[in-house]
Structures are given as C-alpha cells and as structure tokens.
C-alpha cells in the first residue's frame, strides 16, 4: 500500500523536476508534498486509462503504464539531475533539517497522525456515502469480472453514477497488488489526506509568510475535531479540499512570479480537481476566470504563461471530459427542473431555508468556533481582501462559490432541501476550510509591494 504512494511521489517529483528544471520557485518541502499530490493524480489517470482499455482490474498493466511513464519522466528529468547531482543531498538535508522549531513541528505532525488515527476509531468504515458510493465503486472496480461501465448504468441511481471516480481509482491504485482486505485502504487514504491538508496549509503559507503564523494556521486546521471527523469519513471532500488548497497556493505563486512553470503546475492541479467531484468543475471554472481577471487589461501581454496554463489544464481535463461525455449519466441534482413555474413556487422559501441552515451550520458548536474565528478575521481585514490584487481573487472565489452553491440548493426540486442541507452542507463548507484559512493568514501576514497606504 505505501509502496504505491511512494511510486506516485516519485512520478510527481520527476514531473515537477521537468516543469521547474533549474528555476524552482517553491521551497523543497512544499515541492515534495505537491509532488505527492501531482503523482497521485497521475496514478489515478493511469489507472483510469487501464480500465478504459481493459475494462476490468489488471494491476500488472497499471504497473506497466507507471513503468513506461517513469522511464519517460526519468529521461526528461535526467539532464537536470546531472547538473544538480551534488545539490540533492543538500536539498534533502534542507527538507529534513535539524533546526529546533522544524524538529518540533514534525514531532507535532507525527502526534497528530496518531490522534487522527484515533479519531477514525469512531467510524472505521466511514460514513454513509463512503460505503454507499465511494467504497462501493472501489469494490466494483477491484472485484467485478464485468466491464467497469456497470457502475454507471446498472447500479441504483442513489449511488450517484454521475460522480467522477478520482477517489475509487485512487483506492484501486493504492490497493495495487496488495493481498490484504480492502477495508484499510480507504481508511488510510483518508487519514493521510487529513494530515496532508494540515501540512500543506503550513508549508503553503511558509512560502509567503513567517514560520510561526504558518504553523499556527496548519495546527488550527489539523486539530479541529470536526475537521478530523469529516476528513476521515472516507468521502472525496478531503481530496477536493487538498487540491483546492494546492490550487490557491499555486495561484498566488503564479500571480506573484508570473512564471510559465508555476502556471503549468497550477493548470495541472485545477485539472485534477475536476475529476474528484462535480464541485471541482465549478471550482476550476471560477479559479480560471479569476486568474484571467487578475491580469486585467494586461492579459494579452501574458499570452505565453496563459498558454502553458491552458495547455496543462486541457491535458488534465481530458479524462473528466471523456468521463462526462462517454460514461457518466446526467446529474440529477444540479438544475434539473429549471422551469420558471418551479422557481416561482420554490425560490423564496428555499433561499430562506438555505441561509438559515448556513448560519446554523457555521455557528454550531461542533466546529469549535473555527468558522466564527474565520469569518471575524475576514471581516476585520475586508479592505485588504477587496483592494489588494492577490487577496481579491481568492476572496472573490469564496463569494462567487457561495452564491453558486446557494443557486444549486435552491433550484433543485428532486429532494427535500432541508434534508439535502442537513446531509451535505457540512461537507461542502468543510472542503473550503483549508483554503479559507490560507486566505486569512496570507492576507494578514504577507507583505505586498505597496503597503504604505494600509
């Protein structure tokens, strides 16, 4: 199981080496963590490819694809390694350095790993959608002798056959040649991603702000008990939270450095997000639009970097496009009955229910007041969020996304809105929490070029 995570890490690291060559703009530890995220995305796509070609689970073919890609990436990265061979031990040393604060940080994350594992004791098989949808589909991928298209056409529609299959393919890849029971695989995937969100928040902020507030942000997220509970529910929401946070980090890095390499990696992450959940497609569209808007009138002067961005996004969006075009049935929940008569009858009441439920959810004590803290911090810093270029884009994402979610909830007439909010709203806002904390701490601590007027 851990071997496959390592293989993905190596693939991702080789990919980032080829992208950045001699000009890395990210710190080594962040590069390593993003390598793992990118590598997992690549492994998921290779697994998906093997199912498209061979219809059922063929682990040897999945490993063959990984081997071929590894060779190609290694040959591509070899010139860079040859030039910087002597620096590799220094990079590794810098990553696993011996300064006291960093040592304490890594001890903290190790303790948190144990605590996160203990949190899962309350739901080792995950929550409802874990066994009713995600792990169910994983079982079909791994065990069925029938073509995997059965998942989309023959399972009951309550299993959401239109949902992308990032998490089931991820668990399928991690299972690999393992002869163990299936049960630990999604459990450990959830634990690893839970911790990875906290570490990514810390390392991502470390790229832009001092060490101590970066650590406080990561610790604040990772120690939140309800965040831990939701993240270990074995749903795909923690994956989308992780990749959205990675997208935020890379968006800020890209807009700061204006390097084609950063935009390329940013495009890759956005593409992966679209294959995790349907919300990922919305997030990708909003972040792409906000990136273009941030260039303003100078957008045509940066054609080269945008070309790399759209190239990467296009490449990693192809699997989602294939999935939505040829495999998945239409989604029942998003604007299914967009008829004026229905909207006139339901709109106001649904809006009222939505806003009331959102308020109740954000102020509920189960969140240990993290939302009250976050929204207060946003309000106190509102001028900077609106007027500063990089913060504005990230802040507008949350505003637009909130109204998009409101529109989806209030225009659906398939199921009771109260039930839908009760069963899904916590998960929707949970996936936004890492990125929101990133925005808050980044906006307070980073030093923009023109600070004098603030």
């Amino acid at each position, binding site marked *: 199981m851990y071997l496959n995570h390592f293989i993905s890490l190596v693939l991702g690291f080789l990919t980032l080496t080829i992208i950045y060559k001699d000009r890395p703009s990210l710190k080594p530890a962040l590069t390593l963590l993003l390598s793992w995220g990118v590598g997992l995305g690549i492994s998921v796509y290779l697994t998906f490819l093997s199912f498209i070609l061979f219809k059922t689970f063929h682990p040897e073919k999945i490993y063959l694809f990984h081997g071929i890609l590894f060779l190609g990436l290694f040959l591509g990265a070899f010139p860079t390694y040859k030039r910087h061979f002597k620096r590799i031990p220094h990079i590794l040393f810098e990553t696993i350095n011996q300064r006291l604060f960093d040592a304490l940080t890594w001890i903290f994350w190790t303790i948190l790993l144990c605590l996160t594992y203990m*949190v899962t004791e309350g739901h080792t098989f995950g929550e409802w959608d874990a066994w*009713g949808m995600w792990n*169910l589909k994983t*079982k079909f991928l791994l065990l069925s002798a029938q073509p995997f298209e059965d998942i989309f056409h023959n399972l*009951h529609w309550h299993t959401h056959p239109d949902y992308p299959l990032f998490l089931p393919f991820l668990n399928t890849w991690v299972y690999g040649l393992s002869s163990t029971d299936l049960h630990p695989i999604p459990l450990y995937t959830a634990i690893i991603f839970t911790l990875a969100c906290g570490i990514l928040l810390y390392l991502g902020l470390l790229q832009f702000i001092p060490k101590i507030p970066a650590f*406080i942000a990561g610790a604040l997220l990772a*120690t939140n008990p309800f965040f831990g509970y939701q993240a270990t529910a074995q749903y795909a929401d923690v994956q989308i939270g992780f990749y959205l946070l990675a997208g935020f980090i890379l968006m800020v890095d890209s807009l700061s450095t204006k390097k084609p390499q950063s935009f390329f990696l940013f495009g890759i992450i956005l593409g992966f997000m679209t294959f995790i959940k349907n919300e990922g497609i919305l997030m990708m569209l909003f972040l792409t639009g906000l990136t273009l808007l941030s260039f303003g009138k100078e957008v045509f002067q940066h054609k080269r970097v945008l070309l790399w961005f759209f190239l990467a996004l296009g490449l990693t969006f192809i699997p989602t496009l294939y999935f939505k075009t040829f495999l998945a049935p239409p989604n029942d929940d998003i604007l299914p009955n967009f008829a004026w008569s229905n909207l006139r009858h339901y709109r106001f009441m649904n809006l009222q229910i939505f806003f009331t439920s959102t308020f109740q959810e954000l102020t509920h004590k189960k969140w240990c007041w993290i939302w009250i803290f976050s929204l*207060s911090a946003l309000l106190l810093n509102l001028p900077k969020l609106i007027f500063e270029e990089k913060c504005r884009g990230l802040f507008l994402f949350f505003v637009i996304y909130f109204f998009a979610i409101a529109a989806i909830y209030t225009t659906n007439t398939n*199921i009771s809105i109260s039930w839908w909010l009760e069963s899904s709203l916590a998960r929707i806002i949970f996936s936004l929490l890492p990125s929101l904390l990133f925005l*808050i701490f980044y906006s307070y601590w980073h030093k923009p070029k023109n600070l004098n007027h603030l």
Partner: protein
Amino acid sequence: MKILQRKTLITIAAVVLIPFNLFYMYVYIMKNLSQLDPMFAQPGFQFANFQEELKGVKRVGFLTNKNITREDNDGHYLQAQFILAPTILELNNNNHEFLILDYTHQYFVFYMIKTLNLKPIDDTGYMKVLAVYKDQ
C-alpha cells in the same frame, strides 16, 4: 499599527483555539473508545451470510417494502449492495434466479415466498432471506 493590532488579535484567537480543539478532540476520542462495540461489523453485515452463495452471480433481485427514498436513506438496500458487491442488486425486480427478501415483518416475507413460489436457501438472524424459485 492598525494592522499589527488586528494581527495580534487573530494570532491570540488562533493560539487559544488550538488547545481548545485538542481538548475536544481528546473528549471525542475517549468517548469513542469507551463506546467501542467489539461486535461492530462493517455496513451490510446483516447480509454477509449470502456472500458465499452469491459469489460469481452477476445480478440478484432485492425485494423490500422498506422506504427507499434518499431522505429515509434506502433502508438496508445500499448496505446489502455494499457487502455483496460486485453482485448487482436490482431493487424490487423479481426476474432473477436469486432473490433477497428484506421486509419489515416476517409475515411479509412468508407472503412473498408463497406468492412467488420461492424456496428459501439461506437466512440470517436479521430477518433477511435468500431464496430461489421452486421450479428451477
């Protein structure tokens, strides 16, 4: 200076919240550990007995009178689908060799067995029955 004051407030609030979070995480973990049921089994354990008999079977009918709406969370149907995967369970479709009967009361089970002329081949202690047609 104003920024520094806001920053200080946010830092203090965040630093206060961390041990608060850790305390409630500890409470949650202790509560779970004290309530652990050694007999706890995976979702769909009520149908686990049928796994051997249904190995290699592509489709099975799942007959039930329980509420199968999303709001009422599908009764036990999705749990059965999970534990018996990759066998596909077709809800309330009796055009299959094997049928699983899951009803709210045993009288309904007996009624369906008699009406459809079924022969029970296995059952669990949870009033779930696996049956085939008598004339097969």
